[in-house]
């Protein structure tokens, strides 16, 4: 029976686990912003209420309270009032149920700062920038970093002695320091590349040669700032994995048997690769989060900038929308790794079969 296949059972079990994790993440996303004092309606009202008389101010406030699901609404969509004429506030539990329902439908509410724009709209325009910046950077950085790391572990000698401290240094330089350095030296001092922004001022995002040209010119510095750090980090990980594999019994045994070196390397590479594969998926998952600071430094029009402006303006719906998206990315990446490793790793396959 296919449904009893150990790998499928394993995947189903993991999927269930990730659903639970997702619910916890949504709960955290709901709870943490509500610990503070700030109330989205107060924030908007302080901006729009100037010059309004009391009655229209209250009407407006109620409209906003309704929009952010903070008050009870009757069947026809009117705000309910208590005996003193104050709107009836929704209980926290009910708010949570509403929030959960909206989130599951993909509705992230509307932004406060850019009211009445929807959060999902803002994310939709910002996300492609982040993906275009991070995805190629991480994938290429991962490939090159792993190759260098494996070479360093295998060759040792001068190559290792130069590469290892260099990789250690690039992975220790915080992304934001490196980014600022690039902006200052290559962007402002030497003026080789534009220092900030995603494209030329006069252009609007569209599918055209001019726009593409401008965007790729602006792409160089942010790309470099992430790329070198990924290469360094991955090279270190792969190097220590390979050194560990070199010392294992199966490699010694294979050497004693007189198996060709290239073949042993292949065995080793396969074993050392698995944890690195996990690393790739984790990096892909955290990329949106890691992008925050990079994008802030380069004023790159992606998700990081969106979250930054949201933080500066206490735009909670936008903050939680972005953080939820990041969390979902991480969960999806982790789940894909679990599935992939389940298929690729004979050791995991063996434990599944025994369960």
């Amino acid at each position, binding site marked *: 029976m296919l449904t009893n296949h150990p790998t499928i059972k394993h995947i189903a079990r993991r999927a269930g*686990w990730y659903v*639970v*994790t997702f619910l*916890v*993440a949504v709960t*955290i*996303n709901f709870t*943490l*912003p*509500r*610990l*503070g*004092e*700030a109330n989205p309606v107060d924030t908007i009202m302080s901006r729009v209420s100037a010059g309004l008389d009391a009655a229209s101010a209250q009407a407006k406030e109620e409209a906003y309270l309704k929009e952010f699901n903070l008050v009870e609404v009757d069947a026809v969509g009117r705000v309910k009032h208590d005996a003193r004429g104050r709107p009836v506030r929704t209980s926290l539990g009910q708010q949570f149920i509403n929030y959960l329902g909206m989130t599951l439908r993909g509705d992230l509410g509307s932004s406060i700062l850019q009211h009445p724009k929807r959060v999902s709209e803002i994310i939709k325009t910002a996300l492609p920038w982040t993906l275009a910046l991070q995805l190629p950077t991480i994938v290429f950085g991962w490939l090159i970093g792993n190759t260098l790391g494996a070479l360093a572990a295998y060759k040792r000698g001068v190559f290792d002695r130069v590469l290892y401290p260099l990789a*250690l*240094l690039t*992975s*220790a*330089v*915080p992304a*934001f*320091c490196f980014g*600022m*350095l690039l*902006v*200052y030296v290559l*962007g*402002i*001092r030497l003026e080789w590349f534009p*220092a900030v922004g995603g494209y030329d001022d006069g252009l609007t995002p569209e599918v055209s040669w001019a726009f593409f040209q401008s965007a790729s010119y602006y792409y160089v510095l942010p790309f470099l700032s992430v790329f070198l750090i990924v290469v360094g980090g991955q090279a270190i990980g792969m190097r220590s994995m390979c*050194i*560990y594999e070199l*010392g294992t019994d199966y490699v010694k045994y294979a050497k004693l048997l007189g198996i060709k070196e290239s073949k042993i390397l292949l065995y080793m590479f396969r074993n050392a690769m698995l944890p690195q594969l996990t690393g790739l998926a984790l990096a892909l998952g*955290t990329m949106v*989060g890691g992008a*925050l*600071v990079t994008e*802030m*430094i380069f004023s790159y029009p992606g998700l990081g900038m969106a*979250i*930054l402006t949201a*933080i*500066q303006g*206490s735009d*909670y719906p936008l*903050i*939680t929308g972005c*953080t939820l998206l*990041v*969390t979902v990315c*991480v*969960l999806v990446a*982790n789940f894909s790794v679990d599935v992939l490793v389940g298929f690729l790793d004979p050791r995991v396959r063996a434990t599944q079969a025994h369960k």
Partner: protein
Amino acid sequence: MKLLKNLLASPAFALGMGLFVLTLLTSLLGPRLLHVDVNTRVGLAYLPPSSSHWLGTDHMGLDMVSLLIAGLRSSLYVGFLAGTVATTVGTLIGLYGGYKGGLIDDVLTAATNLFLVIPSLIVLILLSASIENGRSLTLIALIIGCTTWTWSARAVRAQAASLRNRDHVALARINGYGTFGIVFLHIMPYLLSYIFMVFILQMATGILAEASLSMLGLGPYDSVSLGKILNEAKTNEALTDGAWWAFAPAMVLITMIVFSLYIINTSLEGVFNPRLRK
């Protein structure tokens, strides 16, 4: 003693320790040797380095050397506090779950994995954004500690689980030691070197997390930190004004601390793990 000799024989350890002690001494002795004042304006904005102000002034006309020493102190403080909290929480959970096994272990592992996949920077952003007033340095350090303990818990759990079936643990159990006696007297001593390495990395994580938060504008309201100096420099056009002294020294300091902690960690690994020794 042999351990210390082994350690000092490794040039990487000597370099890392040297750099770290240097930053530590600067932060401790700086305020005694130099006049550190981060509240008084000593001149115009972005004055270049001179003999009276070695690293010039920032956008407010404050002395950069003072700011850097104060920032270094805050960053190290955050590192120590966040590192201690994260290591303690992670070690306790990891040791207990790893030794106990069974249902308790399953529950603790599930909780750890759960918080491991939810990015800690996101939780940090949400928490810091909601406590707008009263976001003090200590609070930030505690929050960082409470959100970054997960991977040390996972690492310590794996080690503790590998020790639980050893003969000396079984012997201790026969002799009537309780769970806490066994965990602290018969398992933890074997992992001390490992826990120390975890602490070093947690410290680096804490320092980086604080700097990232400050860069995003969610820094402490009550102190200068290295991340905050960078954030101020970035938002006040130090980059375009060519005022390198307003950000380059802070960048060097952060990198130096993190780099020294990283190489201390890897060189400790080389000494503690005989397999990596030549």
